[in-house]
Protein backbone atom coordinates (compact mmCIF):
# COMPACT_ATOMS: atom_id res chain seq x y z
CA UNK A 1 0.00 0.00 0.00
CA UNK A 2 2.75 2.41 1.00
CA UNK A 3 4.66 1.32 -2.07
CA UNK A 4 1.67 2.11 -4.26
CA UNK A 5 1.27 5.60 -2.83
CA UNK A 6 4.99 6.26 -3.13
CA UNK A 7 5.21 5.17 -6.75
CA UNK A 8 2.01 6.99 -7.61
CA UNK A 9 3.27 10.23 -6.13
CA UNK A 10 6.66 9.84 -7.83
CA UNK A 11 5.00 9.45 -11.23
CA UNK A 12 2.80 12.46 -10.51
CA UNK A 13 5.78 14.55 -9.45
CA UNK A 14 7.80 13.79 -12.59
CA UNK A 15 4.76 14.41 -14.78
CA UNK A 16 4.21 17.73 -13.01
CA UNK A 17 7.82 18.76 -13.63
CA UNK A 18 7.55 17.74 -17.30
CA UNK A 19 4.42 19.80 -17.81
CA UNK A 20 5.19 22.78 -15.56
CA UNK A 21 6.89 24.88 -18.30
CA UNK A 22 4.20 23.96 -20.80
CA UNK A 23 1.36 24.87 -18.45
CA UNK A 24 3.06 28.12 -17.45
CA UNK A 25 3.23 29.28 -21.06
CA UNK A 26 -0.26 28.00 -21.72
CA UNK A 27 -1.75 29.99 -18.84
CA UNK A 28 0.20 33.12 -19.73
CA UNK A 29 -0.89 32.88 -23.35
CA UNK A 30 -4.21 34.24 -22.12
CA UNK A 31 -2.63 37.06 -20.16
CA UNK A 32 -1.52 40.31 -21.72
CA UNK A 33 1.44 40.93 -19.40
CA UNK A 34 4.69 41.84 -21.15
CA UNK A 35 6.55 39.39 -19.00
CA UNK A 36 5.79 36.05 -17.44
CA UNK A 37 5.64 36.39 -13.67
CA UNK A 38 3.88 39.74 -13.66
CA UNK A 39 0.18 39.03 -13.78
CA UNK A 40 -1.61 41.63 -15.84
CA UNK A 41 -5.26 42.40 -14.98
CA UNK A 42 -6.40 42.13 -18.58
CA UNK A 43 -6.55 38.74 -20.07
CA UNK A 44 -8.25 37.02 -22.98
CA UNK A 45 -7.37 36.12 -26.52
CA UNK A 46 -5.45 39.30 -27.33
CA UNK A 47 -2.14 37.47 -27.79
CA UNK A 48 -3.78 35.16 -30.30
CA UNK A 49 -5.01 38.16 -32.25
CA UNK A 50 -1.51 39.60 -32.07
CA UNK A 51 -0.10 36.35 -33.37
CA UNK A 52 -2.55 36.39 -36.26
CA UNK A 53 -1.63 39.99 -37.11
CA UNK A 54 2.11 39.44 -36.82
CA UNK A 55 2.87 38.99 -40.53
CA UNK A 56 6.48 38.06 -39.90
CA UNK A 57 5.58 35.32 -37.43
CA UNK A 58 2.73 33.99 -39.57
CA UNK A 59 5.04 33.78 -42.56
CA UNK A 60 7.51 31.86 -40.38
CA UNK A 61 4.81 29.38 -39.40
CA UNK A 62 3.80 28.84 -43.03
CA UNK A 63 7.47 28.49 -44.07
CA UNK A 64 8.01 25.85 -41.41
CA UNK A 65 4.94 23.84 -42.39
CA UNK A 66 5.63 23.99 -46.13
CA UNK A 67 9.26 22.98 -45.62
CA UNK A 68 8.24 20.03 -43.42
CA UNK A 69 5.60 18.86 -45.90
CA UNK A 70 7.85 19.14 -48.96
CA UNK A 71 10.87 17.58 -47.25
CA UNK A 72 8.65 14.89 -45.74
CA UNK A 73 7.14 14.11 -49.13
CA UNK A 74 10.52 13.85 -50.88
CA UNK A 75 11.91 11.74 -48.03
CA UNK A 76 8.92 9.44 -48.14
CA UNK A 77 9.04 8.83 -51.89
CA UNK A 78 12.81 8.46 -52.08
CA UNK A 79 13.01 6.53 -48.80
CA UNK A 80 10.24 4.09 -49.70
CA UNK A 81 11.88 3.37 -53.04
CA UNK A 82 15.18 2.98 -51.21
CA UNK A 83 13.69 0.61 -48.64
CA UNK A 84 12.20 -1.62 -51.35
CA UNK A 85 15.47 -1.56 -53.26
CA UNK A 86 17.55 -2.36 -50.19
CA UNK A 87 15.26 -5.14 -49.06
CA UNK A 88 15.37 -7.01 -52.35
CA UNK A 89 19.09 -6.50 -53.02
CA UNK A 90 21.66 -9.19 -52.38
CA UNK A 91 23.08 -9.59 -48.92
CA UNK A 92 26.18 -7.43 -49.34
CA UNK A 93 24.43 -4.46 -50.88
CA UNK A 94 21.70 -4.82 -48.29
CA UNK A 95 24.15 -4.65 -45.42
CA UNK A 96 26.16 -1.75 -46.84
CA UNK A 97 23.02 0.31 -47.55
CA UNK A 98 21.67 -0.38 -44.08
CA UNK A 99 24.84 0.96 -42.52
CA UNK A 100 24.83 4.03 -44.79
CA UNK A 101 21.21 4.72 -43.92
CA UNK A 102 22.04 4.91 -40.23
CA UNK A 103 24.85 7.46 -40.62
CA UNK A 104 22.68 10.60 -40.34
CA UNK A 105 20.92 9.14 -37.28
CA UNK A 106 24.12 8.27 -35.47
CA UNK A 107 26.08 11.32 -36.51
CA UNK A 108 25.98 14.55 -34.52
CA UNK A 109 23.53 16.93 -36.17
CA UNK A 110 26.08 19.71 -36.33
CA UNK A 111 28.48 17.47 -38.27
CA UNK A 112 25.75 16.55 -40.74
CA UNK A 113 24.89 20.23 -41.01
CA UNK A 114 28.42 21.35 -41.82
CA UNK A 115 28.89 18.49 -44.30
CA UNK A 116 25.76 19.45 -46.22
CA UNK A 117 26.73 23.10 -46.24
CA UNK A 118 30.12 22.11 -47.70
CA UNK A 119 28.73 19.88 -50.46
CA UNK A 120 26.05 22.37 -51.44
CA UNK A 121 28.62 25.15 -51.70
CA UNK A 122 30.73 22.84 -53.82
CA UNK A 123 27.80 22.25 -56.15
CA UNK A 124 27.20 25.99 -56.29
CA UNK A 125 23.93 26.32 -54.39
CA UNK A 126 25.12 26.85 -50.84
CA UNK A 127 22.56 28.42 -48.50
CA UNK A 128 19.53 28.31 -50.74
CA UNK A 129 16.13 26.69 -50.47
CA UNK A 130 17.59 23.69 -52.30
CA UNK A 131 20.34 23.18 -49.72
CA UNK A 132 17.80 23.60 -46.91
CA UNK A 133 15.56 20.99 -48.50
CA UNK A 134 18.46 18.58 -49.02
CA UNK A 135 19.48 19.03 -45.39
CA UNK A 136 16.00 18.17 -44.17
CA UNK A 137 15.72 15.17 -46.51
CA UNK A 138 19.07 13.81 -45.28
CA UNK A 139 17.91 14.30 -41.70
CA UNK A 140 14.52 12.62 -42.13
CA UNK A 141 15.05 9.92 -44.75
CA UNK A 142 16.57 7.28 -42.41
CA UNK A 143 13.39 7.34 -40.34
CA UNK A 144 11.27 6.65 -43.43
CA UNK A 145 13.51 3.77 -44.53
CA UNK A 146 13.54 2.27 -41.05
CA UNK A 147 9.75 2.41 -40.74
CA UNK A 148 9.17 0.84 -44.17
CA UNK A 149 11.65 -2.07 -43.96
CA UNK A 150 9.84 -3.89 -41.09
CA UNK A 151 6.63 -3.83 -43.15
CA UNK A 152 8.48 -5.36 -46.08
CA UNK A 153 9.68 -8.12 -43.77
CA UNK A 154 6.11 -8.82 -42.69
CA UNK A 155 4.84 -8.97 -46.26
CA UNK A 156 3.98 -12.29 -47.86
CA UNK A 157 6.44 -12.58 -50.73
CA UNK A 158 4.24 -15.05 -52.62
CA UNK A 159 1.74 -12.30 -53.41
CA UNK A 160 4.26 -10.46 -55.56
CA UNK A 161 5.30 -13.66 -57.35
CA UNK A 162 1.66 -14.61 -57.88
CA UNK A 163 0.84 -11.31 -59.57
CA UNK A 164 3.89 -11.69 -61.82
CA UNK A 165 2.75 -15.20 -62.74
CA UNK A 166 -0.65 -13.78 -63.62
CA UNK A 167 1.05 -11.54 -66.15
CA UNK A 168 1.61 -8.22 -64.40
CA UNK A 169 4.82 -6.29 -65.15
CA UNK A 170 7.17 -5.77 -62.16
CA UNK A 171 6.22 -2.10 -62.14
CA UNK A 172 2.55 -2.90 -61.96
CA UNK A 173 3.16 -5.53 -59.29
CA UNK A 174 4.90 -2.95 -57.11
CA UNK A 175 2.01 -0.53 -57.28
CA UNK A 176 -0.64 -3.25 -57.04
CA UNK A 177 0.83 -5.39 -54.27
CA UNK A 178 3.91 -4.00 -52.54
CA UNK A 179 2.81 -0.40 -51.96
CA UNK A 180 -0.60 -1.24 -50.45
CA UNK A 181 0.98 -3.87 -48.18
CA UNK A 182 3.60 -1.50 -46.76
CA UNK A 183 1.37 1.59 -46.68
CA UNK A 184 1.15 1.78 -42.85
CA UNK A 185 4.95 1.93 -42.70
CA UNK A 186 5.05 4.60 -45.39
CA UNK A 187 2.50 6.72 -43.56
CA UNK A 188 4.21 6.49 -40.20
CA UNK A 189 7.54 7.26 -41.90
CA UNK A 190 5.98 10.36 -43.47
CA UNK A 191 4.57 11.56 -40.14
CA UNK A 192 7.90 10.94 -38.44
CA UNK A 193 9.73 12.84 -41.15
CA UNK A 194 7.39 15.82 -40.77
CA UNK A 195 7.80 15.84 -37.02
CA UNK A 196 11.59 15.73 -37.20
CA UNK A 197 11.70 18.44 -39.84
CA UNK A 198 9.45 20.69 -37.73
CA UNK A 199 11.76 20.18 -34.77
CA UNK A 200 15.05 20.88 -36.44
CA UNK A 201 17.21 23.87 -35.65
CA UNK A 202 20.87 23.09 -36.35
CA UNK A 203 20.71 21.80 -39.94
CA UNK A 204 18.25 24.57 -40.77
CA UNK A 205 20.56 27.28 -39.47
CA UNK A 206 23.53 25.94 -41.45
CA UNK A 207 21.73 25.54 -44.77
CA UNK A 208 18.92 28.12 -44.94
CA UNK A 209 19.01 31.31 -47.00
CA UNK A 210 19.81 34.17 -44.63
CA UNK A 211 16.36 35.77 -44.66
CA UNK A 212 14.43 32.51 -44.36
CA UNK A 213 12.99 31.73 -40.92
CA UNK A 214 11.41 28.67 -39.39
CA UNK A 215 9.70 28.46 -36.00
CA UNK A 216 12.90 26.96 -34.56
CA UNK A 217 15.21 29.71 -35.81
CA UNK A 218 12.66 32.40 -34.88
CA UNK A 219 12.36 31.17 -31.30
CA UNK A 220 16.10 30.63 -31.05
CA UNK A 221 16.78 34.20 -32.16
CA UNK A 222 14.24 35.51 -29.66
CA UNK A 223 15.52 33.50 -26.70
CA UNK A 224 19.22 32.80 -27.10
CA UNK A 225 21.67 35.09 -25.30
CA UNK A 226 19.51 36.37 -22.50
CA UNK A 227 16.34 37.07 -24.47
CA UNK A 228 12.95 36.23 -23.05
CA UNK A 229 9.30 36.28 -23.91
CA UNK A 230 8.91 40.04 -23.50
CA UNK A 231 10.53 40.38 -26.94
CA UNK A 232 7.67 38.54 -28.65
CA UNK A 233 4.71 37.81 -26.31
CA UNK A 234 2.76 36.39 -29.27
CA UNK A 235 5.06 33.38 -29.16
CA UNK A 236 3.17 32.27 -26.05
CA UNK A 237 0.01 31.99 -28.11
CA UNK A 238 1.87 30.05 -30.80
CA UNK A 239 3.20 27.71 -28.14
CA UNK A 240 -0.28 27.11 -26.73
CA UNK A 241 -1.69 26.39 -30.19
CA UNK A 242 1.07 23.92 -31.00
CA UNK A 243 0.50 22.22 -27.66
CA UNK A 244 -3.25 21.83 -28.22
CA UNK A 245 -2.79 20.64 -31.81
CA UNK A 246 -0.24 18.06 -30.67
CA UNK A 247 -2.51 16.76 -27.93
CA UNK A 248 -5.39 16.46 -30.39
CA UNK A 249 -3.11 14.72 -32.87
CA UNK A 250 -1.78 12.20 -30.37
CA UNK A 251 -5.27 11.47 -29.01
CA UNK A 252 -6.68 10.86 -32.49
CA UNK A 253 -3.65 8.84 -33.52
CA UNK A 254 -3.76 6.53 -30.51
CA UNK A 255 -7.53 6.20 -30.88
CA UNK A 256 -7.05 4.96 -34.45
CA UNK A 257 -4.18 2.69 -33.38
CA UNK A 258 -6.34 1.24 -30.60
CA UNK A 259 -9.28 0.56 -32.87
CA UNK A 260 -7.02 -1.02 -35.45
CA UNK A 261 -5.38 -3.34 -32.93
CA UNK A 262 -8.80 -4.26 -31.52
CA UNK A 263 -10.08 -5.08 -35.00
CA UNK A 264 -7.00 -7.17 -35.73
CA UNK A 265 -7.34 -8.85 -32.36
CA UNK A 266 -10.91 -9.93 -33.04
CA UNK A 267 -10.01 -11.34 -36.43
Amino acid at each position, binding site marked *: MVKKILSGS*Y*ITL*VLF*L*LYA*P*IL*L*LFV*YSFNMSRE*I*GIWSPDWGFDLYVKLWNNADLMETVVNTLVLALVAGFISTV*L*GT*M*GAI*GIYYSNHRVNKA*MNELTKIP*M*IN*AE*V*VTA*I*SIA*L*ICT*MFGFGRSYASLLIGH*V*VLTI*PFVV*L*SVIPKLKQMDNNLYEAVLDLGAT*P*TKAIFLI*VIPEILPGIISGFLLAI*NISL*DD*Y*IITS*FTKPSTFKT*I*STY*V*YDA*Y*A*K*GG*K*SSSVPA*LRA*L*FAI*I*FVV*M*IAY*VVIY*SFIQNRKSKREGSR
Partner: protein
Amino acid sequence: MNGLKFSRKQLGIPYAVFLIAFVVVPLLLIILYAFTKKVPAGSETFTIAGEPVSFAVSNFSDFFSKQANIRVLFVSFGLAIITTVISLLIAYPVAYILAKSKFNKGGVLLILFILPLWINFVLRTAAMKELLYFIGMYKSNSFSFVNTLIGMVYDYLPFVIMPLYSVILKIDKSYAEASADLGAKPWKTFVSVTLPLSMPGIVSAVSMVLLPTTTSYVISDTLGNGNVTIVGKLIETQFLTMHNWHAGSTIALVLLVIIFISMFLSGKFTEEKDESAGRANLW
Protein backbone atom coordinates in the same frame (compact mmCIF):
# COMPACT_ATOMS: atom_id res chain seq x y z
CA MET B 1 3.58 1.27 -68.97
CA ASN B 2 6.02 -0.21 -71.42
CA GLY B 3 8.44 2.67 -71.33
CA LEU B 4 8.52 2.63 -67.56
CA LYS B 5 9.70 -0.79 -66.54
CA PHE B 6 11.71 -1.36 -63.40
CA SER B 7 12.18 -4.16 -60.96
CA ARG B 8 12.16 -3.93 -57.19
CA LYS B 9 15.91 -3.81 -56.89
CA GLN B 10 16.34 -0.88 -59.26
CA LEU B 11 14.00 1.24 -57.13
CA GLY B 12 16.87 1.62 -54.69
CA ILE B 13 19.19 3.31 -57.17
CA PRO B 14 18.02 6.92 -56.70
CA TYR B 15 18.24 6.47 -52.95
CA ALA B 16 21.75 5.03 -53.19
CA VAL B 17 22.83 7.93 -55.41
CA PHE B 18 21.30 10.41 -52.96
CA LEU B 19 23.06 8.82 -49.98
CA ILE B 20 26.41 8.83 -51.74
CA ALA B 21 26.04 12.42 -52.94
CA PHE B 22 24.72 13.93 -49.71
CA VAL B 23 25.95 11.65 -46.93
CA VAL B 24 29.17 9.92 -48.00
CA VAL B 25 30.81 12.56 -50.18
CA PRO B 26 30.05 15.37 -47.67
CA LEU B 27 31.78 13.41 -44.91
CA LEU B 28 34.81 12.98 -47.17
CA LEU B 29 34.67 16.73 -47.83
CA ILE B 30 34.89 17.35 -44.08
CA ILE B 31 38.10 15.33 -44.01
CA LEU B 32 39.44 17.25 -47.00
CA TYR B 33 38.62 20.61 -45.41
CA ALA B 34 40.08 19.55 -42.08
CA PHE B 35 43.44 18.77 -43.64
CA THR B 36 43.64 21.84 -45.85
CA LYS B 37 44.12 25.51 -45.25
CA LYS B 38 43.27 28.66 -47.15
CA VAL B 39 46.40 30.14 -48.73
CA PRO B 40 47.08 33.27 -50.81
CA ALA B 41 46.39 32.76 -54.50
CA GLY B 42 49.44 31.53 -56.37
CA SER B 43 50.85 29.29 -53.65
CA GLU B 44 47.94 26.85 -53.68
CA THR B 45 48.13 23.11 -54.29
CA PHE B 46 44.58 23.03 -55.65
CA THR B 47 41.27 24.83 -55.27
CA ILE B 48 38.02 23.79 -53.58
CA ALA B 49 34.92 25.71 -54.62
CA GLY B 50 37.12 28.40 -56.17
CA GLU B 51 39.19 28.86 -53.04
CA PRO B 52 42.97 28.38 -53.17
CA VAL B 53 44.07 25.84 -50.55
CA SER B 54 46.97 23.59 -49.69
CA PHE B 55 47.42 20.66 -47.34
CA ALA B 56 48.09 21.41 -43.69
CA VAL B 57 47.79 19.71 -40.32
CA SER B 58 48.06 23.00 -38.47
CA ASN B 59 44.25 23.11 -38.08
CA PHE B 60 44.52 20.39 -35.48
CA SER B 61 47.43 21.90 -33.59
CA ASP B 62 45.63 25.27 -33.69
CA PHE B 63 42.56 23.69 -32.15
CA PHE B 64 44.22 21.62 -29.46
CA SER B 65 46.76 24.25 -28.45
CA LYS B 66 44.06 26.67 -27.31
CA GLN B 67 43.29 26.34 -23.62
CA ALA B 68 39.75 27.60 -24.19
CA ASN B 69 38.97 24.83 -26.67
CA ILE B 70 40.12 22.13 -24.29
CA ARG B 71 37.94 23.68 -21.62
CA VAL B 72 34.97 23.59 -23.96
CA LEU B 73 35.58 19.90 -24.62
CA PHE B 74 35.63 19.21 -20.88
CA VAL B 75 32.48 21.28 -20.27
CA SER B 76 30.67 19.48 -23.12
CA PHE B 77 31.50 15.99 -21.96
CA GLY B 78 30.97 16.93 -18.31
CA LEU B 79 27.51 18.35 -19.04
CA ALA B 80 26.60 15.37 -21.20
CA ILE B 81 27.69 12.82 -18.62
CA ILE B 82 25.97 14.58 -15.71
CA THR B 83 22.81 14.97 -17.81
CA THR B 84 22.85 11.30 -18.72
CA VAL B 85 23.35 10.14 -15.14
CA ILE B 86 20.64 12.42 -13.71
CA SER B 87 18.24 11.45 -16.51
CA LEU B 88 18.83 7.76 -15.83
CA LEU B 89 18.30 8.24 -12.10
CA ILE B 90 15.01 10.07 -12.66
CA ALA B 91 13.82 7.89 -15.55
CA TYR B 92 14.58 4.43 -14.23
CA PRO B 93 11.98 4.48 -11.43
CA VAL B 94 9.46 6.03 -13.84
CA ALA B 95 10.03 3.32 -16.43
CA TYR B 96 9.99 0.64 -13.76
CA ILE B 97 6.74 1.82 -12.21
CA LEU B 98 5.10 2.26 -15.62
CA ALA B 99 6.17 -1.20 -16.73
CA LYS B 100 4.95 -2.89 -13.55
CA SER B 101 1.86 -0.93 -12.60
CA LYS B 102 -1.71 -1.62 -13.49
CA PHE B 103 -2.75 1.97 -14.07
CA ASN B 104 -0.66 2.17 -17.24
CA LYS B 105 -3.31 0.24 -19.20
CA GLY B 106 -2.44 0.15 -22.89
CA GLY B 107 0.43 2.56 -22.31
CA VAL B 108 -1.85 5.58 -21.78
CA LEU B 109 0.28 6.91 -18.97
CA LEU B 110 3.38 6.35 -21.06
CA ILE B 111 1.97 8.59 -23.80
CA LEU B 112 1.79 11.42 -21.26
CA PHE B 113 5.54 11.15 -20.77
CA ILE B 114 6.25 11.13 -24.50
CA LEU B 115 3.79 13.87 -25.47
CA PRO B 116 6.14 16.81 -24.77
CA LEU B 117 8.44 15.45 -27.50
CA TRP B 118 5.84 16.49 -30.04
CA ILE B 119 6.24 20.16 -29.19
CA ASN B 120 8.98 21.95 -31.09
CA PHE B 121 12.27 21.34 -29.35
CA VAL B 122 13.38 24.98 -29.35
CA LEU B 123 10.00 26.14 -28.08
CA ARG B 124 10.12 23.59 -25.29
CA THR B 125 13.53 24.86 -24.26
CA ALA B 126 12.23 28.43 -24.37
CA ALA B 127 9.34 27.39 -22.14
CA MET B 128 11.82 26.00 -19.66
CA LYS B 129 13.62 29.34 -19.72
CA GLU B 130 10.38 31.11 -18.85
CA LEU B 131 9.84 28.75 -15.94
CA LEU B 132 13.39 29.25 -14.69
CA TYR B 133 12.91 33.03 -14.87
CA PHE B 134 9.64 32.60 -13.06
CA ILE B 135 11.24 30.81 -10.12
CA GLY B 136 14.18 33.22 -10.03
CA MET B 137 16.96 31.13 -11.53
CA TYR B 138 18.26 34.05 -13.58
CA LYS B 139 19.01 36.39 -10.68
CA SER B 140 22.65 35.42 -10.81
CA ASN B 141 24.96 34.33 -13.59
CA SER B 142 26.29 31.53 -11.41
CA PHE B 143 23.12 29.57 -12.17
CA SER B 144 23.92 29.37 -15.90
CA PHE B 145 25.44 25.92 -15.72
CA VAL B 146 22.66 24.52 -13.54
CA ASN B 147 20.01 26.06 -15.78
CA THR B 148 21.57 24.42 -18.82
CA LEU B 149 21.69 21.12 -16.99
CA ILE B 150 18.01 21.37 -16.00
CA GLY B 151 17.08 22.14 -19.60
CA MET B 152 19.05 19.19 -20.94
CA VAL B 153 17.53 16.74 -18.49
CA TYR B 154 14.10 18.16 -19.22
CA ASP B 155 14.48 17.88 -22.99
CA TYR B 156 15.99 14.40 -23.07
CA LEU B 157 14.08 12.67 -20.27
CA PRO B 158 11.49 11.09 -22.62
CA PHE B 159 14.33 9.66 -24.72
CA VAL B 160 15.59 7.88 -21.60
CA ILE B 161 12.22 6.68 -20.30
CA MET B 162 11.21 5.01 -23.58
CA PRO B 163 14.03 2.49 -24.10
CA LEU B 164 14.12 1.69 -20.37
CA TYR B 165 10.38 1.10 -20.34
CA SER B 166 10.38 -1.22 -23.34
CA VAL B 167 13.25 -3.30 -21.94
CA ILE B 168 11.84 -3.57 -18.41
CA LEU B 169 8.45 -4.51 -19.83
CA LYS B 170 9.99 -7.51 -21.58
CA ILE B 171 11.82 -8.89 -18.53
CA ASP B 172 10.34 -12.23 -17.59
CA LYS B 173 8.66 -12.00 -14.19
CA SER B 174 9.71 -15.52 -13.26
CA TYR B 175 13.36 -14.47 -12.86
CA ALA B 176 12.48 -12.11 -10.04
CA GLU B 177 10.11 -14.68 -8.55
CA ALA B 178 12.81 -17.33 -8.65
CA SER B 179 15.21 -14.98 -6.95
CA ALA B 180 12.65 -14.28 -4.23
CA ASP B 181 11.90 -17.98 -3.80
CA LEU B 182 15.58 -18.63 -3.30
CA GLY B 183 15.49 -16.20 -0.42
CA ALA B 184 16.84 -12.95 -1.88
CA LYS B 185 15.59 -9.70 -0.39
CA PRO B 186 13.66 -7.46 -2.85
CA TRP B 187 16.60 -5.03 -2.97
CA LYS B 188 19.04 -7.84 -3.69
CA THR B 189 16.74 -9.20 -6.40
CA PHE B 190 16.62 -5.78 -8.02
CA VAL B 191 20.39 -5.27 -7.99
CA SER B 192 21.38 -8.73 -9.15
CA VAL B 193 18.46 -9.67 -11.42
CA THR B 194 16.34 -6.79 -12.71
CA LEU B 195 19.08 -4.21 -13.13
CA PRO B 196 21.46 -6.42 -15.16
CA LEU B 197 18.55 -7.54 -17.33
CA SER B 198 17.68 -3.92 -18.10
CA MET B 199 21.25 -3.14 -19.22
CA PRO B 200 20.37 -3.06 -22.96
CA GLY B 201 17.80 -0.35 -22.23
CA ILE B 202 20.33 1.64 -20.24
CA VAL B 203 22.92 1.37 -23.02
CA SER B 204 20.50 2.52 -25.70
CA ALA B 205 19.27 5.37 -23.48
CA VAL B 206 22.86 6.49 -22.94
CA SER B 207 23.60 6.35 -26.65
CA MET B 208 20.52 8.45 -27.36
CA VAL B 209 21.37 11.18 -24.85
CA LEU B 210 25.13 11.40 -24.59
CA LEU B 211 25.90 12.56 -28.11
CA PRO B 212 23.15 15.16 -28.61
CA THR B 213 23.90 16.73 -25.23
CA THR B 214 27.58 17.02 -26.15
CA THR B 215 26.94 18.74 -29.45
CA SER B 216 23.47 20.25 -29.66
CA TYR B 217 24.08 23.82 -28.57
CA VAL B 218 20.47 25.03 -28.68
CA ILE B 219 19.89 24.33 -24.99
CA SER B 220 23.15 25.84 -23.76
CA ASP B 221 22.64 28.93 -25.93
CA THR B 222 19.06 29.42 -24.81
CA LEU B 223 19.47 28.69 -21.11
CA GLY B 224 23.15 29.35 -20.42
CA ASN B 225 22.91 33.14 -20.73
CA GLY B 226 26.04 33.10 -22.92
CA ASN B 227 28.13 31.52 -20.16
CA VAL B 228 28.03 27.92 -21.32
CA THR B 229 29.79 26.94 -24.56
CA ILE B 230 29.75 23.37 -25.80
CA VAL B 231 31.68 21.84 -28.66
CA GLY B 232 28.83 22.03 -31.19
CA LYS B 233 28.79 25.78 -30.67
CA LEU B 234 32.49 26.01 -31.56
CA ILE B 235 31.75 24.49 -34.95
CA GLU B 236 28.87 26.90 -35.49
CA THR B 237 31.01 29.90 -34.55
CA GLN B 238 33.84 28.88 -36.87
CA PHE B 239 31.38 28.23 -39.63
CA LEU B 240 28.74 30.94 -39.43
CA THR B 241 30.58 33.81 -37.73
CA MET B 242 34.27 33.36 -38.45
CA HIS B 243 33.66 31.85 -41.91
CA ASN B 244 36.63 29.58 -41.34
CA TRP B 245 35.30 26.37 -42.82
CA HIS B 246 38.59 24.58 -42.44
CA ALA B 247 38.70 25.12 -38.68
CA GLY B 248 35.00 24.17 -38.44
CA SER B 249 35.61 20.96 -40.35
CA THR B 250 38.57 20.15 -38.12
CA ILE B 251 36.38 20.20 -35.01
CA ALA B 252 33.70 18.24 -36.88
CA LEU B 253 36.28 15.61 -37.79
CA VAL B 254 37.40 15.35 -34.16
CA LEU B 255 33.75 14.77 -33.21
CA LEU B 256 33.32 12.22 -36.00
CA VAL B 257 36.26 10.21 -34.70
CA ILE B 258 34.85 10.29 -31.17
CA ILE B 259 31.42 9.22 -32.45
CA PHE B 260 32.97 6.42 -34.47
CA ILE B 261 34.90 5.09 -31.49
CA SER B 262 31.90 5.26 -29.16
CA MET B 263 29.64 3.57 -31.72
CA PHE B 264 32.20 0.82 -32.02
CA LEU B 265 32.34 0.38 -28.25
CA SER B 266 28.57 0.46 -27.71
CA GLY B 267 28.12 -1.91 -30.66
CA LYS B 268 30.23 -4.42 -28.75
CA PHE B 269 27.94 -3.96 -25.78
CA THR B 270 24.63 -4.47 -27.52
CA GLU B 271 25.68 -7.11 -30.04
CA GLU B 272 23.97 -5.88 -33.18
CA LYS B 273 20.72 -5.02 -31.43
CA ASP B 274 19.24 -2.61 -33.90
CA GLU B 275 19.42 0.35 -31.60
CA SER B 276 19.19 3.25 -33.96
CA ALA B 277 15.75 1.91 -34.78
CA GLY B 278 14.95 2.62 -31.16
CA ARG B 279 14.81 6.29 -31.89
CA ALA B 280 12.39 5.68 -34.73
CA ASN B 281 10.14 3.71 -32.41
CA LEU B 282 9.86 6.65 -30.05
CA TRP B 283 7.27 8.44 -32.05
